[in-house]
């Protein structure tokens, strides 16, 4: 039984723009799902469709086995935390949290109990009689959380709730959201464009691009086994290096400047002479001192990060970056690179789909 199910949901705007091109998702009870992607990828539209703030063109949405896509937002038993908090500016913190309960006919005593419990959990007890205008950004964020929590809905929706906070507060609230979600056990869908937020919060990640799902998986899966070049480039900083290459035989790649690289034996899915992208994460590549390295690299710029160092340059006239734990300044610009053969990613040149296991 899924807590939330999207079945081939399509959203086409009046101007013909397709924001969702058949999205299907199945989310488990208590799961923390993160929708991530660049702006315009359809992640917000997906979230707003679940909320009922956007009508969908076709497909079905089910929450706890009830079809909801025709219901108004207030009937879907969901709560949402907005990017700019969307607190009611004319109401006190208490009333902001109580408003949804009042409209659902809870008794005053019930409301007081729920609101006070949430306020205690979020350390807002001292601020209950203040108005949102008198609170700091972090406190407003908490009130928005509290407003969602008191209703004890079936589903939490988060629409980039941390992007208005400064860096240190963002980290703190990130941890707090995770902690609250764990202790409440409420199924959550979280939208963000920030990959660190996505990786750290998610039980499962959904990477979206141009109205379609590129990949669904745990943070580990999507990072270590990206299924498309889009996912490969989207996650990780600096991004994965992608080198155009041609397969020679079963275990050699020929780069565009003619150098040959040995790779593990490929299965029959890939054929001799096929055009590919060779994907190498910057941290999976290292410099070797011997001149018999596997890849010729020309260094251009280095950046000091403290714990590690970034080295930017070119391989076969394609930009290439390394993340090195140790690097001593050399006289030369020419290096040889070596890599862990288990950590390579091969994608079809045309479709961008992953071809190796």
């Amino acid at each position, binding site marked *: 039984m899924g807590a939330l199910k999207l079945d081939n949901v399509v959203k086409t705007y009046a101007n013909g723009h397709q924001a969702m091109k058949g999205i299907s998702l199945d989310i488990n009870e208590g799961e923390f799902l993160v929708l991530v992607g660049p702006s315009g990828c359809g992640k917000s539209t997906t979230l707003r469709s679940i909320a009922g703030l956007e009508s969908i063109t076709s497909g079905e949405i089910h929450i706890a086995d009830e079809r909801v896509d025709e219901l108004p937002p*207030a009937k879907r038993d969901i709560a*949402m935390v907005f990017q700019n908090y*969307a607190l009611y500016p004319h109401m006190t913190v208490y009333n902001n949290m109580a408003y*949804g309960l009042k409209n659902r006919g809870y008794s005053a005593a019930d409301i007081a109990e729920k609101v006070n419990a949430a306020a205690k959990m979020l350390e807002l007890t001292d601020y209950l009689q203040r108005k949102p205008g008198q609170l700091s950004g972090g406190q407003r964020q908490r009130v928005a959380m509290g407003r969602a929590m008191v209703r004890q809905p079936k589903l939490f929706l988060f629409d980039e709730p941390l992007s208005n906070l400064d860096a240190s507060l963002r980290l703190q609230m990130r941890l707090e959201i995770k902690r609250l979600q764990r202790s409440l056990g409420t199924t959550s869908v979280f939208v963000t464009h920030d990959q660190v937020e996505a990786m750290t919060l998610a039980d499962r990640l959904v990477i979206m691009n141009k109205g379609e799902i590129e990949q669904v998986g745990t943070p580990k899966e999507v990072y270590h086994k990206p299924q498309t070049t889009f996912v490969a480039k989207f996650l990780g900083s600096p991004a994965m290096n992608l080198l155009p290459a041609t397969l020679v035989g079963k275990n050699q790649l020929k780069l565009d400047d003619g150098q040959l690289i040995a790779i593990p034996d490929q299965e029959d899915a890939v054929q001799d002479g096929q055009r590919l992208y060779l994907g190498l994460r910057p941290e999976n590549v290292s410099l070797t001192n011997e001149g018999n390295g596997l890849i010729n690299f020309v260094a251009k710029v280095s950046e000091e990060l403290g714990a590690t160092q970034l080295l930017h340059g070119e391989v076969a006239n394609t930009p290439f970056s390394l993340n090195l734990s140790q690097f001593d300044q050399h006289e030369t610009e020419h290096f040889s690179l070596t890599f862990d053969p288990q950590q390579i990613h091969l994608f079809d040149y045309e479709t961008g789909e992953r071809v190796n296991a």
Partner: protein
Amino acid sequence: MATKRVQFSHSPIPYLFIVPQLAIIAVFFFWPALQALYLSFMLEDPWGLSSQFVGFENYVELFSSSEYLSTFAFTLLYSSIVTVFSLGVALVLAVKANAILRGQSTYQLLLTWVYAIAPAAAGIMAYFIFNRNIGVVPEFLNSFGWDFRPDTNSFDATAMVILVSVWKQVPVNFVFFLAGLNSISKSVREAAQMDCESDSRRFWTITFPLLAPTAFFLLVINITYAFFETFGLIDTLTQGRPGGSTTTLVYKVYQDGFIGADLGLSSAQSVVLMLLVLLLTFVQFKFIERKVHY
């Protein structure tokens, strides 16, 4: 008063730039305003040759005149009815225009152009439309059994003046209400959609309280309009008739001072109006201080 941190210094330019404004307000604002204050304490002889100081006599005469008091009462009644109706109609239209997704700017155009019509032109237009010989309104009302006679019946005349004043004022209120509605953040409205299912309840608990500052500000604007800007409308539509029953305070200042040439009495009326405006401004400031900070 806030100024820029960075400024020019040692330049004659600031004085050159501000002198025209100061000169104009000195000659055409402070001089007449002080003159009004001065004249309100003076009594001129009928030929305008000499005048003498009479203290508050003009004011006493003013407030013991039943004519002035009824004008006062009419102005208050008229301005409150005009305010309530033009705000109400404009609010309904603005809420509806805000609710629709497409065509909002077209409606805005079609509902605001009347702002540009002079009150005097509106008054003349209304004069013909309400005219018993050629107008269409009396005929229409007659068919309901209302014998509409604005030139002799003061109720009819008042209703007519109010209707035309509302017609002229709806666009301004509409513009501000729509701007106010548009300034309510979209996500606040969406949050309310999740918290409250009923449209009308959502309007009264979220939208309306958030519009309150706009509404209050418009209240002041509308009272000011009904007091001062309707002069042209009244002068062309009824000239205060029948029997002074549609005469507003400003219209009376003009009648007594310009046509009747009783400077002392007219000046005293001007001063009373000034005090009313100051009172209104004071209330406005008090309210802004107290309420508008969210």
